[in-house]
Protein backbone atom coordinates (compact mmCIF):
# COMPACT_ATOMS: atom_id res chain seq x y z
CA UNK A 1 0.00 0.00 0.00
CA UNK A 2 2.71 2.43 1.01
CA UNK A 3 4.52 1.98 -2.24
CA UNK A 4 1.56 3.25 -4.32
CA UNK A 5 1.51 6.89 -3.18
CA UNK A 6 5.30 7.04 -3.64
CA UNK A 7 4.97 5.78 -7.16
CA UNK A 8 2.10 8.17 -7.78
CA UNK A 9 4.11 11.07 -6.41
CA UNK A 10 7.05 10.08 -8.51
CA UNK A 11 4.89 9.93 -11.59
CA UNK A 12 3.28 13.29 -10.81
CA UNK A 13 6.69 14.82 -10.32
CA UNK A 14 7.95 13.36 -13.60
CA UNK A 15 4.84 14.55 -15.41
CA UNK A 16 5.10 18.06 -14.04
CA UNK A 17 8.80 18.18 -14.89
CA UNK A 18 7.99 17.04 -18.38
CA UNK A 19 5.30 19.73 -18.59
CA UNK A 20 7.80 22.41 -17.67
CA UNK A 21 10.21 21.09 -20.26
CA UNK A 22 7.40 20.83 -22.80
CA UNK A 23 6.25 24.36 -22.02
CA UNK A 24 9.76 25.72 -22.45
CA UNK A 25 10.09 23.75 -25.63
CA UNK A 26 6.68 25.07 -26.70
CA UNK A 27 7.91 28.65 -26.29
CA UNK A 28 10.95 27.89 -28.35
CA UNK A 29 8.77 26.09 -30.90
CA UNK A 30 6.51 29.12 -31.22
CA UNK A 31 9.52 31.35 -31.84
CA UNK A 32 10.94 28.95 -34.38
CA UNK A 33 7.57 28.70 -36.06
CA UNK A 34 7.56 32.47 -36.44
CA UNK A 35 11.03 32.30 -37.97
CA UNK A 36 9.81 29.63 -40.40
CA UNK A 37 6.77 31.74 -41.27
CA UNK A 38 9.01 34.72 -41.99
CA UNK A 39 11.28 32.58 -44.18
CA UNK A 40 8.28 31.34 -46.19
CA UNK A 41 6.90 34.85 -46.66
CA UNK A 42 10.32 36.18 -47.68
CA UNK A 43 10.90 33.37 -50.20
CA UNK A 44 7.44 33.74 -51.75
CA UNK A 45 7.75 37.53 -51.87
CA UNK A 46 11.21 37.24 -53.43
CA UNK A 47 9.77 34.91 -56.09
CA UNK A 48 6.91 37.27 -56.91
CA UNK A 49 9.05 40.40 -57.01
CA UNK A 50 11.75 38.50 -58.87
CA UNK A 51 9.16 37.58 -61.49
CA UNK A 52 7.95 41.16 -61.78
CA UNK A 53 11.51 42.47 -62.02
CA UNK A 54 12.40 39.85 -64.64
CA UNK A 55 9.33 40.74 -66.71
CA UNK A 56 10.10 44.48 -66.52
CA UNK A 57 13.66 43.86 -67.58
CA UNK A 58 12.57 41.69 -70.52
CA UNK A 59 10.00 44.27 -71.57
CA UNK A 60 12.58 47.07 -71.44
CA UNK A 61 15.10 45.03 -73.39
CA UNK A 62 12.47 44.23 -76.03
CA UNK A 63 11.26 47.81 -76.28
CA UNK A 64 14.76 49.23 -76.72
CA UNK A 65 15.86 46.70 -79.33
CA UNK A 66 16.61 48.03 -82.80
CA UNK A 67 15.38 46.21 -85.88
CA UNK A 68 18.41 46.01 -88.18
CA UNK A 69 17.83 47.62 -91.57
CA UNK A 70 18.34 45.19 -94.43
CA UNK A 71 19.15 46.37 -97.94
CA UNK A 72 17.87 44.20 -100.78
CA UNK A 73 20.60 44.12 -103.44
CA UNK A 74 18.50 44.60 -106.54
CA UNK A 75 15.64 46.61 -105.12
CA UNK A 76 16.52 49.66 -107.24
CA UNK A 77 16.27 47.55 -110.41
CA UNK A 78 12.53 47.01 -110.24
CA UNK A 79 9.56 49.02 -109.02
CA UNK A 80 7.22 48.37 -106.12
CA UNK A 81 3.66 49.57 -106.56
CA UNK A 82 1.08 49.87 -103.83
CA UNK A 83 -2.50 49.05 -104.71
CA UNK A 84 -4.43 50.99 -102.06
CA UNK A 85 -7.71 49.28 -102.98
CA UNK A 86 -6.45 45.79 -102.12
CA UNK A 87 -3.73 46.76 -99.64
CA UNK A 88 -1.19 44.72 -101.59
CA UNK A 89 2.19 45.66 -103.01
CA UNK A 90 3.29 44.42 -106.42
CA UNK A 91 7.07 44.21 -106.72
CA UNK A 92 8.88 43.58 -110.00
CA UNK A 93 9.05 44.58 -113.64
CA UNK A 94 5.58 44.98 -115.17
CA UNK A 95 6.43 42.76 -118.17
CA UNK A 96 7.44 39.76 -116.02
CA UNK A 97 5.42 36.76 -117.22
CA UNK A 98 5.01 35.01 -113.88
CA UNK A 99 3.04 36.64 -111.10
CA UNK A 100 3.65 35.22 -107.67
CA UNK A 101 1.16 35.94 -104.91
CA UNK A 102 2.70 35.62 -101.46
CA UNK A 103 0.39 35.57 -98.41
CA UNK A 104 2.45 36.32 -95.35
CA UNK A 105 2.27 37.45 -91.76
CA UNK A 106 5.21 39.40 -90.34
CA UNK A 107 4.96 37.47 -87.06
CA UNK A 108 4.83 34.03 -88.66
CA UNK A 109 8.09 32.11 -88.10
CA UNK A 110 7.51 29.84 -91.08
CA UNK A 111 7.11 32.93 -93.27
CA UNK A 112 10.45 34.07 -91.91
CA UNK A 113 11.98 30.72 -92.88
CA UNK A 114 10.39 30.97 -96.33
CA UNK A 115 11.87 34.45 -96.79
CA UNK A 116 15.30 33.45 -95.51
CA UNK A 117 15.40 30.48 -97.87
CA UNK A 118 13.97 32.18 -100.95
CA UNK A 119 14.51 35.95 -100.79
CA UNK A 120 17.91 35.97 -102.61
CA UNK A 121 16.62 33.79 -105.48
CA UNK A 122 13.41 35.83 -105.72
CA UNK A 123 15.40 39.08 -105.80
CA UNK A 124 17.51 37.65 -108.63
CA UNK A 125 14.44 36.73 -110.70
CA UNK A 126 12.81 40.08 -109.96
CA UNK A 127 15.90 41.77 -111.37
CA UNK A 128 15.88 39.46 -114.38
CA UNK A 129 12.25 40.35 -115.03
CA UNK A 130 11.03 36.77 -115.05
CA UNK A 131 8.74 37.10 -112.04
CA UNK A 132 6.89 39.77 -110.11
CA UNK A 133 5.62 39.25 -106.58
CA UNK A 134 2.41 40.55 -105.09
CA UNK A 135 2.70 40.68 -101.32
CA UNK A 136 -0.47 40.12 -99.32
CA UNK A 137 0.44 41.08 -95.77
CA UNK A 138 -2.10 39.55 -93.41
CA UNK A 139 -2.78 39.46 -89.68
CA UNK A 140 -3.38 35.75 -89.19
CA UNK A 141 -1.38 35.79 -85.95
CA UNK A 142 -2.77 39.00 -84.49
CA UNK A 143 -3.51 37.28 -81.17
CA UNK A 144 -0.05 35.72 -80.98
CA UNK A 145 1.56 38.85 -79.63
CA UNK A 146 1.08 40.39 -76.21
CA UNK A 147 -0.43 42.96 -76.56
CA UNK A 148 -2.35 41.60 -79.54
CA UNK A 149 -2.16 43.22 -82.93
CA UNK A 150 1.51 43.18 -83.93
CA UNK A 151 0.71 41.51 -87.27
CA UNK A 152 -1.75 44.24 -88.26
CA UNK A 153 0.55 47.01 -87.06
CA UNK A 154 3.55 45.62 -88.97
CA UNK A 155 1.52 45.10 -92.16
CA UNK A 156 0.00 48.59 -91.95
CA UNK A 157 3.45 50.13 -91.39
CA UNK A 158 4.85 48.23 -94.40
CA UNK A 159 1.95 49.63 -96.44
CA UNK A 160 2.79 53.08 -95.06
CA UNK A 161 6.32 52.62 -96.39
CA UNK A 162 4.89 51.55 -99.75
CA UNK A 163 2.72 54.68 -99.69
CA UNK A 164 5.45 57.16 -98.85
CA UNK A 165 8.48 55.57 -100.52
CA UNK A 166 7.63 52.53 -102.67
CA UNK A 167 11.29 52.07 -103.59
CA UNK A 168 12.07 51.26 -99.94
CA UNK A 169 9.31 48.66 -99.54
CA UNK A 170 11.51 45.68 -100.47
CA UNK A 171 14.09 46.75 -97.87
CA UNK A 172 11.44 47.25 -95.22
CA UNK A 173 9.79 43.91 -95.95
CA UNK A 174 13.16 42.13 -95.83
CA UNK A 175 14.12 43.91 -92.58
CA UNK A 176 10.95 42.85 -90.78
CA UNK A 177 11.47 39.23 -91.81
CA UNK A 178 15.17 39.54 -91.10
CA UNK A 179 14.51 40.05 -87.39
CA UNK A 180 11.07 38.86 -86.39
CA UNK A 181 9.79 39.24 -82.84
CA UNK A 182 8.97 35.95 -81.15
CA UNK A 183 5.44 34.63 -81.11
CA UNK A 184 3.59 35.43 -77.87
CA UNK A 185 6.19 38.03 -77.03
CA UNK A 186 5.41 41.74 -77.08
CA UNK A 187 6.22 42.18 -80.79
CA UNK A 188 7.87 45.36 -82.05
CA UNK A 189 6.18 48.56 -80.97
CA UNK A 190 4.98 51.14 -83.47
CA UNK A 191 7.93 53.31 -82.37
CA UNK A 192 10.34 50.52 -83.29
CA UNK A 193 8.59 49.93 -86.62
CA UNK A 194 8.66 53.67 -87.42
CA UNK A 195 12.28 53.90 -86.29
CA UNK A 196 13.20 51.19 -88.81
CA UNK A 197 11.40 53.13 -91.53
CA UNK A 198 13.28 56.30 -90.57
CA UNK A 199 16.61 54.49 -90.83
CA UNK A 200 15.57 53.46 -94.35
CA UNK A 201 14.94 57.18 -95.01
CA UNK A 202 11.17 56.78 -94.96
CA UNK A 203 9.33 59.42 -92.94
CA UNK A 204 7.11 62.42 -93.44
CA UNK A 205 3.39 63.16 -93.57
CA UNK A 206 2.49 60.43 -96.09
CA UNK A 207 4.07 57.77 -93.89
CA UNK A 208 2.81 59.20 -90.61
CA UNK A 209 -0.70 59.57 -91.97
CA UNK A 210 -1.05 55.86 -92.74
CA UNK A 211 0.60 54.85 -89.47
CA UNK A 212 -1.42 57.15 -87.22
CA UNK A 213 -4.76 56.43 -88.85
CA UNK A 214 -4.06 52.68 -89.15
CA UNK A 215 -5.35 53.28 -92.67
CA UNK A 216 -5.14 49.67 -93.82
CA UNK A 217 -6.02 47.92 -90.55
CA UNK A 218 -9.58 47.08 -91.57
CA UNK A 219 -8.53 46.08 -95.10
CA UNK A 220 -5.81 43.78 -93.76
CA UNK A 221 -8.41 42.05 -91.60
CA UNK A 222 -10.85 41.83 -94.54
CA UNK A 223 -8.09 40.35 -96.71
CA UNK A 224 -7.47 37.66 -94.10
CA UNK A 225 -11.16 36.81 -93.88
CA UNK A 226 -11.35 36.62 -97.67
CA UNK A 227 -8.23 34.46 -97.87
CA UNK A 228 -9.58 32.06 -95.27
CA UNK A 229 -12.76 31.68 -97.32
CA UNK A 230 -11.00 31.34 -100.68
CA UNK A 231 -10.87 27.67 -101.80
CA UNK A 232 -7.85 28.40 -104.01
CA UNK A 233 -5.80 29.34 -100.96
CA UNK A 234 -6.49 26.37 -98.71
CA UNK A 235 -3.65 24.10 -97.71
CA UNK A 236 -3.89 20.95 -95.66
CA UNK A 237 -6.05 21.89 -92.70
CA UNK A 238 -7.17 25.29 -93.95
CA UNK A 239 -5.56 28.60 -94.75
CA UNK A 240 -2.12 29.28 -93.38
CA UNK A 241 0.85 31.51 -93.96
CA UNK A 242 2.88 31.47 -96.03
CA UNK A 243 0.72 30.55 -99.00
CA UNK A 244 2.34 31.02 -102.39
CA UNK A 245 0.64 31.11 -105.78
CA UNK A 246 2.17 31.34 -109.23
CA UNK A 247 -0.17 32.72 -111.87
CA UNK A 248 -3.10 31.80 -109.63
CA UNK A 249 -2.12 28.22 -108.78
CA UNK A 250 -0.61 27.17 -105.46
CA UNK A 251 3.02 26.14 -105.48
CA UNK A 252 4.63 23.79 -102.98
CA UNK A 253 7.14 26.25 -101.57
CA UNK A 254 8.36 23.58 -99.13
CA UNK A 255 10.04 21.93 -102.10
CA UNK A 256 13.35 23.81 -102.16
CA UNK A 257 13.36 23.56 -105.95
CA UNK A 258 9.94 25.20 -106.43
CA UNK A 259 11.22 28.38 -108.05
CA UNK A 260 13.51 26.61 -110.50
CA UNK A 261 10.71 24.21 -111.42
CA UNK A 262 8.41 27.15 -111.95
CA UNK A 263 10.90 28.93 -114.20
CA UNK A 264 11.53 25.75 -116.17
CA UNK A 265 7.80 25.30 -116.75
CA UNK A 266 7.42 28.76 -118.29
Amino acid at each position, binding site marked *: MSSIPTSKNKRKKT*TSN*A*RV*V*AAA*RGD*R*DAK*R*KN*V*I*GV*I*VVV*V*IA*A*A*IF*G*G*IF*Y*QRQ*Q*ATAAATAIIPAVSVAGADQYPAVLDPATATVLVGKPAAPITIDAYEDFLCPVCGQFEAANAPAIDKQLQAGTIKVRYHMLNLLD*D*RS*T*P*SGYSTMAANTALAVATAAPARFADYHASLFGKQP*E*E*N*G*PGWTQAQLSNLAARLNVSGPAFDGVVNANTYGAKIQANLTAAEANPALQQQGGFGTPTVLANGAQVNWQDSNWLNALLAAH
Partner: protein
Amino acid sequence: MARPSTRALDAVGTLARLGLAGVWLASGAIKLVDPHATVASVKAYQLVPDHLVSLVANVLPFLELALGLLLLFGVGVRLVAVLSGIVLLVYIAGIAQSWARGLTIDCGCFGGGGQVAAGQTHYPQEILRDTGFLLLALWLALRPSTLVSVDGWLTGPTHAATLENAS
Protein backbone atom coordinates in the same frame (compact mmCIF):
# COMPACT_ATOMS: atom_id res chain seq x y z
CA MET B 1 -9.65 0.95 -33.92
CA ALA B 2 -5.98 0.57 -34.71
CA ARG B 3 -4.39 3.95 -35.40
CA PRO B 4 -1.56 4.00 -37.91
CA SER B 5 1.70 4.79 -36.15
CA THR B 6 3.02 8.37 -36.12
CA ARG B 7 5.95 7.24 -38.16
CA ALA B 8 3.73 5.73 -40.85
CA LEU B 9 1.67 8.92 -41.05
CA ASP B 10 4.88 10.97 -41.24
CA ALA B 11 6.04 8.76 -44.10
CA VAL B 12 2.76 9.35 -45.96
CA GLY B 13 3.13 13.09 -45.32
CA THR B 14 6.69 12.98 -46.63
CA LEU B 15 5.52 11.35 -49.85
CA ALA B 16 2.79 14.00 -50.19
CA ARG B 17 5.32 16.76 -49.53
CA LEU B 18 7.90 15.50 -52.02
CA GLY B 19 5.19 14.71 -54.56
CA LEU B 20 3.74 18.20 -54.40
CA ALA B 21 7.27 19.66 -54.45
CA GLY B 22 7.96 17.70 -57.64
CA VAL B 23 4.74 18.96 -59.21
CA TRP B 24 5.61 22.61 -58.51
CA LEU B 25 9.26 22.30 -59.51
CA ALA B 26 8.41 20.54 -62.79
CA SER B 27 5.60 22.86 -63.81
CA GLY B 28 7.54 25.96 -62.72
CA ALA B 29 10.69 24.93 -64.59
CA ILE B 30 8.78 24.08 -67.77
CA LYS B 31 7.00 27.45 -67.65
CA LEU B 32 10.24 29.30 -66.98
CA VAL B 33 12.18 27.87 -69.92
CA ASP B 34 9.45 28.72 -72.45
CA PRO B 35 8.15 32.13 -71.34
CA HIS B 36 6.36 32.81 -74.62
CA ALA B 37 4.35 29.59 -74.36
CA THR B 38 3.47 30.56 -70.80
CA VAL B 39 2.25 33.94 -72.02
CA ALA B 40 0.14 32.18 -74.64
CA SER B 41 -1.42 29.83 -72.12
CA VAL B 42 -2.21 32.60 -69.61
CA LYS B 43 -3.74 34.60 -72.42
CA ALA B 44 -5.88 31.71 -73.60
CA TYR B 45 -7.85 31.72 -70.33
CA GLN B 46 -9.11 35.21 -71.22
CA LEU B 47 -9.14 36.12 -67.53
CA VAL B 48 -6.24 38.52 -67.24
CA PRO B 49 -6.31 41.94 -68.95
CA ASP B 50 -4.02 42.02 -71.99
CA HIS B 51 -1.48 44.38 -70.43
CA LEU B 52 -1.09 42.16 -67.34
CA VAL B 53 -0.79 38.81 -69.16
CA SER B 54 2.97 39.04 -69.55
CA LEU B 55 3.41 40.00 -65.88
CA VAL B 56 1.30 37.11 -64.59
CA ALA B 57 3.04 34.71 -66.96
CA ASN B 58 6.43 35.78 -65.64
CA VAL B 59 5.49 35.64 -61.97
CA LEU B 60 3.81 32.21 -62.04
CA PRO B 61 6.91 30.11 -62.77
CA PHE B 62 8.89 31.80 -60.00
CA LEU B 63 6.00 31.38 -57.56
CA GLU B 64 5.68 27.70 -58.43
CA LEU B 65 9.43 27.13 -58.09
CA ALA B 66 9.43 28.88 -54.70
CA LEU B 67 6.57 26.69 -53.45
CA GLY B 68 8.38 23.63 -54.81
CA LEU B 69 11.69 24.47 -53.12
CA LEU B 70 10.03 25.25 -49.77
CA LEU B 71 8.22 21.90 -49.89
CA LEU B 72 11.32 20.05 -51.04
CA PHE B 73 13.27 21.23 -48.00
CA GLY B 74 10.21 21.08 -45.77
CA VAL B 75 10.20 24.73 -44.73
CA GLY B 76 6.90 25.94 -43.25
CA VAL B 77 5.08 22.92 -44.65
CA ARG B 78 1.64 23.86 -43.29
CA LEU B 79 1.78 27.44 -44.56
CA VAL B 80 3.21 26.41 -47.93
CA ALA B 81 0.58 23.67 -48.25
CA VAL B 82 -2.16 26.24 -47.63
CA LEU B 83 -0.62 28.60 -50.23
CA SER B 84 -0.28 25.69 -52.67
CA GLY B 85 -3.94 24.85 -52.10
CA ILE B 86 -4.97 28.43 -52.83
CA VAL B 87 -2.94 28.51 -56.05
CA LEU B 88 -4.37 25.13 -57.09
CA LEU B 89 -7.90 26.31 -56.38
CA VAL B 90 -7.28 29.35 -58.59
CA TYR B 91 -5.98 27.05 -61.35
CA ILE B 92 -8.98 24.73 -61.03
CA ALA B 93 -11.34 27.71 -61.10
CA GLY B 94 -9.54 28.97 -64.22
CA ILE B 95 -9.92 25.65 -66.00
CA ALA B 96 -13.55 25.31 -64.89
CA GLN B 97 -14.49 28.77 -66.16
CA SER B 98 -12.85 28.02 -69.53
CA TRP B 99 -14.93 24.86 -69.72
CA ALA B 100 -18.10 26.67 -68.71
CA ARG B 101 -17.53 29.50 -71.19
CA GLY B 102 -16.91 27.04 -73.99
CA LEU B 103 -13.30 28.11 -74.61
CA THR B 104 -11.24 25.43 -76.29
CA ILE B 105 -7.87 25.61 -74.58
CA ASP B 106 -5.21 23.39 -73.09
CA CYS B 107 -4.64 24.23 -69.42
CA GLY B 108 -0.92 24.75 -69.98
CA CYS B 109 -0.43 23.27 -66.54
CA PHE B 110 2.88 21.70 -67.53
CA GLY B 111 3.91 23.94 -70.40
CA GLY B 112 2.18 24.09 -73.75
CA GLY B 113 -1.24 25.59 -73.41
CA GLY B 114 -3.16 28.01 -75.55
CA GLN B 115 -5.91 27.42 -78.04
CA VAL B 116 -6.66 23.88 -79.17
CA ALA B 117 -9.20 22.42 -81.57
CA ALA B 118 -12.72 21.96 -80.25
CA GLY B 119 -12.37 18.21 -79.75
CA GLN B 120 -8.94 18.43 -78.15
CA THR B 121 -9.82 19.77 -74.70
CA HIS B 122 -9.24 17.66 -71.60
CA TYR B 123 -11.01 19.70 -68.95
CA PRO B 124 -12.23 16.82 -66.73
CA GLN B 125 -8.80 15.15 -66.67
CA GLU B 126 -7.06 18.46 -65.98
CA ILE B 127 -9.42 19.29 -63.12
CA LEU B 128 -9.14 15.75 -61.73
CA ARG B 129 -5.35 15.95 -61.81
CA ASP B 130 -5.27 19.32 -60.08
CA THR B 131 -7.75 18.00 -57.50
CA GLY B 132 -5.32 15.17 -56.82
CA PHE B 133 -2.58 17.74 -56.19
CA LEU B 134 -5.03 19.64 -54.00
CA LEU B 135 -5.50 16.51 -51.84
CA LEU B 136 -1.73 16.35 -51.31
CA ALA B 137 -1.81 19.99 -50.20
CA LEU B 138 -4.81 19.29 -47.96
CA TRP B 139 -3.05 16.42 -46.21
CA LEU B 140 -0.03 18.59 -45.53
CA ALA B 141 -2.16 21.49 -44.34
CA LEU B 142 -3.94 19.23 -41.84
CA ARG B 143 -0.91 17.17 -40.85
CA PRO B 144 2.31 18.97 -41.80
CA SER B 145 4.58 16.65 -39.81
CA THR B 146 6.97 14.84 -42.18
CA LEU B 147 10.34 13.13 -42.09
CA VAL B 148 13.60 14.86 -42.98
CA SER B 149 12.43 18.46 -43.08
CA VAL B 150 13.84 21.83 -42.09
CA ASP B 151 10.71 22.24 -39.95
CA GLY B 152 11.57 19.08 -38.01
CA TRP B 153 15.22 20.03 -37.73
CA LEU B 154 14.35 23.50 -36.37
CA THR B 155 11.68 22.41 -33.89
CA GLY B 156 13.58 19.38 -32.65
CA PRO B 157 11.58 16.27 -31.69
CA THR B 158 7.98 16.42 -32.81
CA HIS B 159 5.20 17.21 -30.35
CA ALA B 160 4.06 13.63 -30.55
CA ALA B 161 7.49 12.50 -29.40
CA THR B 162 7.46 15.07 -26.58
CA LEU B 163 4.11 13.84 -25.38
CA GLU B 164 5.25 10.23 -25.51
CA ASN B 165 8.24 11.11 -23.33
CA ALA B 166 6.00 12.98 -20.93
CA SER B 167 3.47 10.24 -20.29
